[in-house]
């Protein structure tokens, strides 16, 4: 006699099995990474996708040269570029791009895109470690010259910006002693643990009003509750790494089109600058109020609008190419963000529920 098992339960079991297998493999990898990190005083870095810096007042977008859809894509693209730079330097532990801030990261880097076009990039970067100590709060500005275009992928026109951020982070890290770096890692783990089970782990940390965390004590290294916390955290990292791969793929696939868009943008901006200086230096061709003077005024506006609208159309072209590509992975660029954020939140809730079930503790609020 056969019992029909609902398909959803089969799927759930398969999913749990898959996650468990991957988690086991991942744990092994983590142990080896952790060992080498300890040896080399490496710090794991969490790079939150950047704030696209789009003003709420839509009427300013045109004046500021902001194309919101492209900015949103850049907010995912740029952290990936920074991640590649940090990884290539070999100075850091695991570097992840996070869909949302993970406050218990050993080192959490956030950024705001202040300005971005083919000529100039300005990022406001903040970095804070798990103890709450600020490593960076600085504006980074990069400019291009016409010679950088066309861009040869994987080279980025603003690679010097990412290199400078990496260098500044490294300079701060080098000022930290081994014991300070060790404390950062321990506080990071305790912050994660106290988020998951505040009743058990909150007393291990003290925090100040300024957001500084100090370690009061540590659980025993063989504490079973701590082992569960580490396991849950690794499962969360597993999900983040899956997301991370998607961001990396997104950046890789959008790079050629995006670079072309930046090149066009730079050319348009060059033209606009030249035009403005020409107009400023040239006296009106006709007497004020004459047709020649009025036509000159109107044409200046007309061509500025035509250039702006050309760029707008190019932005649409950008989306026309990027959107279907993203469909192949997980929806469009913009759907990707929303769905991953939601998935991440759901995943964290599931992990918290699993932890609560295992320990019998009430789930974290």
């Amino acid at each position, binding site marked *: 006699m056969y019992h029909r098992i609902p398909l959803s339960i089969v799927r759930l079991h398969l999913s749990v099995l898959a996650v468990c297998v991957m988690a086991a493999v991942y744990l092994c990898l983590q142990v080896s990474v952790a060992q080498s990190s300890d040896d080399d005083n490496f710090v794991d870095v969490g790079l939150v996708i950047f704030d696209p810096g789009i003003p709420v007042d839509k009427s300013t977008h045109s004046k500021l040269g902001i194309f919101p859809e492209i900015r949103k894509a850049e907010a995912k693209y740029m952290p990936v570029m920074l991640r590649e730079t940090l990884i290539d330097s070999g100075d850091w532990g695991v570097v992840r791009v996070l869909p949302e801030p993970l406050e218990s990261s050993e080192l959490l880097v956030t950024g705001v895109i202040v300005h971005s076009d083919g000529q100039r990039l300005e990022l406001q970067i903040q970095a804070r470690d798990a103890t709450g100590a600020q490593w960076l709060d600085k504006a980074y500005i990069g400019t291009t010259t016409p010679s950088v275009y066309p861009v040869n992928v994987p080279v980025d026109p603003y690679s010097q910006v990412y290199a400078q951020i990496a260098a500044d982070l490294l300079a701060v890290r080098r000022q930290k002693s081994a014991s300070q770096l060790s404390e950062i890692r321990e506080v990071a783990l305790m912050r994660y643990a106290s988020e998951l089970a505040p009743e058990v782990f909150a007393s291990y940390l003290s925090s100040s009003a300024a957001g500084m965390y100090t370690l009061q004590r540590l659980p025993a290294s063989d504490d079973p509750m701590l082992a569960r916390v580490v396991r849950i955290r690794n499962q969360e990292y597993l999900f983040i790494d899956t997301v991370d791969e998607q961001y990396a793929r997104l950046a890789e696939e959008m790079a050629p089109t995006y670079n072309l868009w930046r090149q066009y943008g730079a050319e348009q901006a060059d033209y606009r600058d030249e035009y403005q200086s020409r107009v400023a230096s040239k006296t009106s061709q006709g007497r004020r109020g004459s047709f020649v003077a009025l036509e000159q005024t109107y044409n200046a506006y007309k061509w500025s609008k035509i250039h702006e*609208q050309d760029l707008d159309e190019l932005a649409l072209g950008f989306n026309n190419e990027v959107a279907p590509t993203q469909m192949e992975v997980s929806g469009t660029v913009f759907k990707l963000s929303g769905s991953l954020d939601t998935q991440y939140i759901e995943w964290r809730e599931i992990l918290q529920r699993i932890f609560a079930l295992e320990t019998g503790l009430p789930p974290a609020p």
Partner: protein
Amino acid sequence: MRLKGLPSLWRNYQTGTRRYGLRWGTLRAHMQNPAKMSRTISLLFVVVLAVCACASPAPKRAVLQGSNAQSVNFSGSWEMDYGQSDNTQEKLDSIVRELNRDAQRRAAQSNMQQGAVGGGMMIGGPSSSSSILGMVRMADLITQSPLLDITQDTDKIRVKREQDFDLTCEFFPGELNRVETPFGTEICGWNGHQLVFKLLLPEGLSIQHVMTVGAAGQKLNIATTVVSSQVSFPFLLNRVYNRFEPGQSGYKCEVTLTRGTVCTTESR
């Protein structure tokens, strides 16, 4: 006292074709003739001060709204109806007639008071013949788009104009769409069932387009008012458009960066 010369000047206008525009070369030739130019300018100077705002009614100061409360839809393809649109030549003739009448009236008043005051012509002021002509030519220049392609949704409208930049407006509830650039400022919004675009440019030039769609949705009127700080009255031109269905091409094109404009066939 008559404005001799100007009416014949305005007659040099292309009629019988689908192009409405002034034959500016003829005008220029006329203006280069010292005798004619002197007479023309003098006559215009005499009367221009008196006709403040009588050539075209001053546009009412509309209180614009950010939202499309009456759900007016301009979407579609439109082609200019030359028969129903204002004829720039006739509008200019109208100005000249007004100027003539006013000049005659003022001359008569002047004659009556000559004994006491001593008479004399009023020359000068903010408006000059070349400023008036400049303003009218501008109005003609910026309203020549024979075809419009309008796309509109709940948030925005884009009026693609042949031979000119697109007029765009985003609808923000409770606020007007205002875009400032180094070259000028654009303001747009709804005045009841009308959509108004205002363009404030340097050199004292401002342009206002008021779009109105007919009740049946088959006619579109764009009333364009040009204001120059050098002329004391605005100039208004109405352009009427008829809705048309663009021929079914059987293909659709979109712009891509790496491949340029890509066209794909589509089923009818």
